[in-house]
């Protein structure tokens, strides 16, 4: 049984970890630069966010030692279980040995730049709040939007002999060899937020949002509005990104099958509000009629709305133009609450508790039944959203 073989290796590994002491990666340094006070504040803020999100989403935070992380609910959402089940998944993958009691679990976290978006900021803060010493972790962070830099960081973490490598890859390809190295070194890899084009054997689990589903939810909601004609300004994210593909796919499919739906323009604003503003401005200048703005994130929706405001085109609940965004930024949900926008689709950035759960399971020697763990996500309608929702789901 592979499991026992790995267990045999455990003391050796634990000793190593102890001997090396607390090593900090690049990420930690970056974190420290923010100052102690700031760190504490963010921490507290994010703790609350994690708590609420975790409990409401109904997915477990795992049996963490920390009192702050509540809800030791069933790991992996029920819907995930219904999907393709891979029973022997965990046994094939090289799960790392459990550290002895009291030892910190060393994790190397490779993420995208937290400045990239509000989503990423929340995501990073969530991870930082979870992987703390109080929770039994020794975490190092590395940030990059570039795949090659991320791979370099991964190699460094492998050299540092982390127990787990947590990865949100910038690009889907190019990861095979470095993940193989990780496996050979007995390091468990957990993907979050983004999938990669590599054999499933190379990682323990992948915790992702289902972008296609996000798109479908949004388009179904829009179809439910019962307009006679749908003249949509479609503002896309960076072309080729998973979020763009998922959110575009559903709309494209609907436009293709339903003659009442047309795209006034379909342009990428590359997640950039200024570009979105210019794109919508251009449509307004041309005098073309439209009644829906389908922006693939909140920032771009905001840019679009700025252009509408300038031209005195009314938008929101019961107005001329329906405004749709994604990601559930707090300010965006507030716009919904104020009825200025109509819809916002959630893209859950709080993967930390899911990851923690996976690690805890592996440490206990339990099998991971689901390789791909899909997070629970919803869409908000301006007519039904509450102030509580804004607080709970806003990032």
């Amino acid at each position, binding site marked *: 049984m592979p499991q026992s073989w790995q267990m045999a290796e455990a003391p050796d590994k634990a000793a190593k970890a102890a001997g090396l002491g607390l090593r900090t990666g690049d990420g930690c340094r970056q974190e420290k630069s923010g100052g102690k006070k700031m760190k504490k504040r963010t921490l507290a803020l994010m703790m609350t966010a994690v708590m609420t999100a975790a409990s409401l989403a109904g997915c477990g935070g795992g049996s963490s030692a920390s009192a702050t992380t509540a809800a030791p609910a069933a790991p992996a959402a029920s819907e995930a279980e219904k999907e393709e089940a891979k029973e022997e998944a965990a046994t094939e993958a090289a799960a790392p040995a459990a550290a002895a009691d009291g030892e910190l679990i060393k994790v190397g976290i490779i993420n995208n730049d937290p400045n990239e978006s509000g989503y990423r900021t929340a995501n990073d803060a969530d991870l930082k709040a979870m992987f703390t010493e109080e929770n039994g972790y020794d975490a190092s962070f590395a940030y990059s939007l570039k795949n090659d830099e991320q791979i370099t960081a991964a190699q460094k973490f492998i050299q540092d002999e982390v127990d787990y490598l947590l990865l949100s890859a910038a690009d889907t390809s190019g990861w095979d060899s470095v993940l193989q190295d990780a496996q050979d070194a007995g390091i468990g890899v957990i993907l979050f937020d983004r999938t990669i084009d590599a054999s499933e054997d190379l990682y323990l689990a992948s915790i992702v949002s289902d972008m296609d589903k996000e798109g479908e939810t949004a388009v179904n909601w829009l179809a439910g509005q019962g307009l006679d004609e749908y003249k949509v300004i479609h503002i896309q994210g960076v072309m080729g990104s998973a979020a763009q593909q998922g959110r575009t796919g559903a709309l494209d499919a609907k436009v293709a099958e339903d003659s009442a739906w047309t795209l006034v323009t379909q342009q990428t604003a590359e*997640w950039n509000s200024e570009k979105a503003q*210019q794109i919508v401005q251009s449509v307004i200048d041309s005098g073309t009629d439209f009644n829906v703005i389908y922006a693939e994130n909140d920032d771009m929706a905001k840019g679009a709305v700025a252009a509408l405001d300038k031209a005195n085109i009314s938008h929101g609940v019961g107005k001329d133009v329906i405004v749709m965004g994604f990601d559930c930024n707090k300010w965006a949900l507030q716009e919904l609450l104020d009825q200025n926008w109509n819809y916002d689709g959630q893209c859950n950035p709080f993967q930390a508790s899911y990851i923690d759960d996976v690690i805890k399971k592996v440490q206990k020697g339990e099998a991971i039944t689901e390789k791909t763990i899909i997070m629970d996500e919803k869409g908000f309608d301006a007519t039904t959203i509450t102030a509580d929702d804004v607080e709970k789901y806003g990032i």
Partner: protein
Amino acid sequence: MTKKKMFFSSRQIFIPIAALILLALFNLAVDPSFFKITLGHNSAGDPVLTGYLMTILDYGSEVAILAIGMTLVTAACGGQDISVGAAVAIAGSVILRVLVGIGGDGTLQAPILVGFLAACVVSMLFGAFNGVLVAIFKIQPMVATLILYTAGRSIAAWINNNELPIVTDKTFTYFGGFIPGIPIPTPFFLAVVCILITLLVLRFTTLGLYTQAVGINSSSSRLNGLNPEFIKFLSFVILGLCVAVVGLIKTSRLSTINYSVIAKDIEMDAILAVALGGNVLSGGKFNIMASIVGAYVIQFLTTTLYKFNVSSDALPAYKAVVVILLVVLSAPAVKDKLMSVIKKQKGVG
């Protein structure tokens, strides 16, 4: 003789104006409604003029303001500042930090003017940082500014502790939008003010002469009593000031900031504006008005392309075509050929 002199002295600004006319004619031929301007009202009930031309004035003004500083840096140092976009992010972040603060509820904590002045100071300091690297340590401008280009957006995010402050106060939207009662976009007025100040400075100080002298022959300038290091340093500080103004416009447009995408690639547009203005990118003689016209030409091109539904990721490709044309046309070999062709034409006619 006098006619010839006129032609030569006005030749530089002739390039961007010709480009402008070309674009205008193209639009006129394809769809004259491009030039339609309508008076409407915005959602706040204030009168606004809308139309493609207004959009050009609005967005072109950002690049125009930056082009002023970029022209000076180019002339004095013979190189370009590529950290402008990142510096705009910093300026915007400073404004929001002062106006709203971390964890603020969006109401103004300080007058907008204070926020703007703070941004001016910080931007000029970062300009000074670039200036010291270039003037004192003699690092190539592009390499020196690469530092801020790389680090700037992280610094901007750090200033607001990675939060995204939102200003709810309506008056803050005036700078990137409209002042109630005035139907022309405010950025255009800000650009006009910047241009007027620049022209006054050039008229009532010797900045123009000194900058050109240093850019053309730094060694000779020193022996004429100038301090080339200071002139170069100064050009970066002035660019910093321009950056602060654009930071105000950018943050005002949306009342918030996105550190990673605000003013993205704007430095390339500013440099392109300088090049379009016929200024030599290796320094020396300059014509700021030509750069400013160049800036509006770029926006004219961008707006035209948007109008024809050209995908926005394809925009850089079109700009690249413009750059290629410019570079080829300004190459000495081509210039001579053109001149001789023109001469022959004249001889025949």
